[in-house]
């Protein structure tokens, strides 16, 4: 959707430019977004101790007052000389929930994730929460650089199964040759898009899932934009990086769907 107005400079120097053609994010009455998540991981060399989750909770407790824990099992493989060192690790991840439980923060060793569930709070509100959490993290531990930043948008929607083809609704879809079997209980399509000379990657997953409505096909369209080259973004650049990540996810999302699917989402004009 093009319009006349102000926009932020694409060079990301936060300058406002006036333009006759500004790409405005489309808004949908029936937004397919079921979850957004923003993840920060600090390098293994960064300081972290078991008191950090408690210190962070003190910073978040007004907005995220309810505490829970969740067991998480991780398997890590790290290069050790010419061999791979495997480590099986179990941890209790701390979860801090908002009062309505629609958003929460996960804190694990060198990891902070901000999640928001449906209904999507819109980017300005979600990015403000991320900013607040990230600032709190920077107050509690010294953050020089990040080993990973990730922004993830999970979309879930359903399309009629009969008399319709995936390509009627999606511009990104798997193609099945005529000689392949027709019985296909499900599929999973993964594409990775590279940005900034490979520093950033957006992994896009299109997955068939169990539908709620009989006669429909349930689909997940998931965008996982992340820093593929660890420690190449400095502390102060993190929020700028996220703005760009969000912009690219929006562009990819719009690039993946057709007007027919937009009509199901009911675009707000």
């Amino acid at each position, binding site marked *: 959707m093009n319009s006349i107005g102000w926009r932020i400079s694409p060079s990301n120097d936060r300058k406002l430019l006036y333009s006759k053609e500004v790409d405005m994010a489309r808004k949908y009455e029936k937004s397919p977004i079921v*979850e957004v998540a923003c993840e920060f991981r600090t390098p293994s060399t960064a300081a972290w101790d078991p008191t950090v989750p408690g210190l962070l909770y003190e910073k978040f407790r007004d907005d995220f007052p309810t505490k829970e824990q969740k067991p998480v099992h991780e398997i890590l493989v790290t290069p050790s000389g010419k061999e791979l060192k495997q480590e099986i690790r*179990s941890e209790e991840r701390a979860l801090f929930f908002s009062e309505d439980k629609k958003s929460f923060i996960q804190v694990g060793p060198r*990891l902070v*994730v901000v999640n928001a569930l449906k209904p999507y709070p819109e980017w300005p509100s979600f990015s403000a929460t991320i900013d607040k959490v990230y600032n709190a993290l920077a107050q509690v531990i010294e953050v020089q650089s990040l080993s990973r930043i990730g922004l993830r948008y999970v979309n879930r929607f359903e399309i009629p199964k009969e008399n319709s083809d995936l390509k009627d609704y999606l511009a990104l879809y798997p193609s099945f040759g005529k000689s392949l079997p027709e019985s296909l209980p499900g599929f999973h399509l993964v594409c990775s898009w590279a940005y900034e000379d490979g520093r950033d990657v957006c992994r896009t*997953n299109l997955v068939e899932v169990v539908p709620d409505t009989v006669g429909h096909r349930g689909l997940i369209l998931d965008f*996982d934009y992340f820093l593929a080259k660890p420690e190449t973004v400095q502390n102060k650049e993190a929020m700028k990086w996220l703005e760009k990540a969000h912009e690219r996810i929006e562009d990819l999302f719009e690039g993946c769907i057709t007007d027919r699917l937009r009509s199901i989402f009911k675009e707000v004009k």
Partner: protein
Amino acid sequence: MTEAAGAPAHIVDRRESKPLGALDSTEVSSWLKEILCRQLTADPFYFSWADIVSELSTIAEFVPPLGMSCSAQPVSLEVEAVIRRIREAGVLTPSPIEIRKYLSENINTTKLVETLCFAAIERFGARAQVSLELFQSREYDDEYLTINIRQERYEPELMREIEEVNSVFDDELSSVSGWVQITTDFHPPR
């Protein structure tokens, strides 16, 4: 070793019916690798475990470079993956939308629901219908998940068996925000 792997002792390796607590570290590592391979083949959602699978050339392109951390799993994907896996195991889900809603409000309960469903299938699957449903109590304004065991003809020992399976998970249930239990409404299979 069970502690190191983080796997609860009651979870059973279904291939050999051997409690994980009885496995040594090498066996657990091998078991987990197999699970990972299986899940990543079927469920590349599990990128939070993907580092280890970078060794597997067949799916190497799906996983990030070695040494790079992987995305923390969004809870919505975890719920979708669990619903799919339990259905594939033979559990009915008459209203997936209700399960999704409940688990998104009780996110630390998702894994336990899956574990209980598998335990129910293992114990009752061969002779009964197993159905995961949301129970809503109007009287107490409460709701929780039930794994209903339904048979054409009810055996006298069924309730005792159900209690036996439920009791194994008492500790886990007390540490999560949601509630799930194996039960029966004595109705015929639907």
